[in-house]
């Protein structure tokens, strides 16, 4: 199968969906600039023109409400945030209105099929307000679907799924994954919402990971294999609704669990998976669950501090060894080559 980068896959998914559904339009800051959200909307802007791909002022709050209004009148708006931190300004409309619309109007006031794309930054000094990862607060709210594609095939498949869904979907894309390549089907195929993907089958330990951490876990698993550990990796893909069965099925088999997330621990996705294991998988577990998350601080800019702020493949590999009762120091530092050269 041919390979595409994550950003090419996003772009292809968007364009294929727009060809088939004239109600889809894309708006947000910079969507029609030559750089087009790091290249993900450039092709859509070229092919579908300013009637369907158009710039917007920095007005994240009202723009979210405008998307809701257009959606209720039959459109499928895609709004984009080049950094997901800006989406916080749209939380009122997203959470108080979009997430609840169908429910609180008893299905009578129409649907709100909006897609909110938001990019998580990392590295090159993105700092405290350009690198947060908002899956946990978003997934807290009934009525929202929250997805985090890690691999190019799912970048395409999940954007297609989002554009076929009748309720609001937030896609958290990771800037560090934009240049990653992988096999991507040419077909117009949705990745099912609410379904995790077992990206590596193993028997010794389960690593449940989100977004970039699924990619890091993949590298960790290669290293673990060299130490005789056969890791199973579950790429969660959808945070809400959560695919409990895939996670529980895996820990029943491996009886060990490490969770790696792109955000913080407290009230986070890693805590949610640990709670799931404690409530419904307790009898399978032979060791405590280990959570891997950001250092419990805002993101620092200085490279020296940034390097210790983010967990990486070796953090996961060492945690897996420790969970299995082996010496974690058997694994040295593993640095995935980061092709992101800034500034943004």
């Amino acid at each position, binding site marked *: 199968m041919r390979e595409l980068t994550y950003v090419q896959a996003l772009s292809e998914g968007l364009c294929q969906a727009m060809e088939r559904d004239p109600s889809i*339009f894309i708006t947000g800051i910079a969507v029609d600039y030559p750089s087009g959200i790091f290249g993900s909307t450039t092709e859509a802007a070229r092919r579908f023109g300013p*009637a369907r791909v158009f710039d*917007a*002022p920095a*007005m994240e*709050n*009202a*723009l*979210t*409400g*405008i*998307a*809701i*209004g*257009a*959606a*209720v*009148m*039959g*459109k499928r*708006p895609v709004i984009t945030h080049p950094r997901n931190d800006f989406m916080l300004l749209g939380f*009122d*409309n997203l959470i*108080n*209105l979009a997430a609840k*619309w*169908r*429910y*609180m*109007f*008893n*299905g*009578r*006031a*129409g649907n709100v099929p909006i897609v909110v794309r938001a990019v998580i930054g990392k590295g090159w000094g993105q700092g405290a307000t350009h690198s947060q990862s908002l899956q946990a607060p978003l997934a807290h709210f*009934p*009525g929202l679907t929250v997805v985090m594609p890690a691999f190019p095939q799912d970048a395409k498949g999940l954007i297609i799924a989002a554009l076929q869904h009748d*309720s609001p979907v937030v896609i958290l894309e990771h800037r560090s994954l934009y240049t990653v390549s992988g096999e991507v089907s040419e077909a117009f195929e949705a990745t099912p919402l609410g379904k995790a993907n077992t990206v590596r089958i193993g028997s010794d330990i389960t690593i449940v990971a989100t977004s970039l951490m699924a990619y890091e876990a993949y590298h960790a698993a290669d290293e673990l294999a060299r130490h005789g550990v056969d890791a199973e990796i579950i790429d969660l893909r959808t945070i809400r609704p959560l695919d409990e069965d895939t996670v529980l099925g895996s820990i029943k088999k491996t009886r060990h669990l490490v969770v790696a997330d792109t955000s913080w621990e407290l009230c986070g996705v890693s805590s949610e998976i640990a709670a799931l294991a404690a409530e419904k998988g307790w009898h399978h577990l032979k060791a405590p669950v280990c959570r891997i998350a950001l250092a419990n601080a805002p993101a620092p800019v200085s490279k020296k501090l940034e390097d210790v702020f983010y967990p990486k493949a070796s953090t996961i590999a060492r945690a897996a060894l420790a969970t299995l009762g082996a010496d974690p120091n058997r694994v040295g530092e593993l640095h995935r080559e980061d092709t992101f050269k800034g500034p943004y």
Partner: protein
Amino acid sequence: MNVTIDNVQTKADVGADVLVLLHKELLKVRLAEETLAERYREQEMRTPAHFGAGQEAVAVGVCQALLRDDVVFTHHRSHNHYLAKGGSVYELAAELYGRADGCSGGRGGSVHLTAPKVGFIASSAILGETVAVATGAALAFQMDNADRIAVVFFGEGAMDEGSFYESINYAAVKQLPVLFVCENNLYATESPLHVRQAPGTDLCERVRAFKVGARRIDGNDVLEVLQATQAVAKDIRAGGGPYFLECMTYRWREHVGPHFDHELQRTYRSREEVEAWMARCPVVRSGERLMRLGIATAQQLDIWQGEIQAETSADVEKARMAPWPEISTLFQYL
């Protein structure tokens, strides 16, 4: 309160049928609202309700100037607009009683009403939200070249929110077919204008700074509201872009709940001020116009009022006895 009202000449050529219709609509809204407010005291409607008695002329005047395909959005004080656009009294009452027959199935409550078949799309509780949503509906109409306009009602308190300015700027930039209707009732909950606006503030001037046309009118004169809306709706439909109407009006009862402020010894506004505004009652003024023009006698007005009151009371009582939602529906429409 010193406020200048733009001098809008009400035309003499309005037909008697229109004036009668306006009056009956005012009665429908007023009597429903007052019946609901009084029965609210029985503690059986368990939903925070913001009654709109005193402000009916804005809802009726605007909605009667719209076409059936036009859409209306509004805020927490939503009953007037829902009824004026054609929403059912029974379904409103059932919604307040939390019953399955409620316009939102008893799930939304007083602040989350809908009646899409008559173009009343939604109300919401958070200030400024639906200003943006209506702007988005107008964006969809413009993209489709549809001959429809979106209307949003909001209080002047919503103009303390950022969402309002983001929305009106966007509507101006894109020249969207949206009518912004401000119901300036002088208080945001119990907060008066002077703690929220600098001395000399003129909301129409603010809006004109965004290159949006604006006019201040007497929101307690249903005919003035109707004719002002007809004029601007025609311009909006012709591609003239958004418009802003500031309708000066006043709510009679407390911010949320069925009481009059004096019943609870509230002092944020004086009883004299309330009574001065009640003397400018939009329903009474409409009735006086009908009598002055020889269209209806006092006796006829009483007959209409009695008929509408009887229907309203029956609808509200029927709603009180309507079935509850099934427990099994708790997770529906997620």
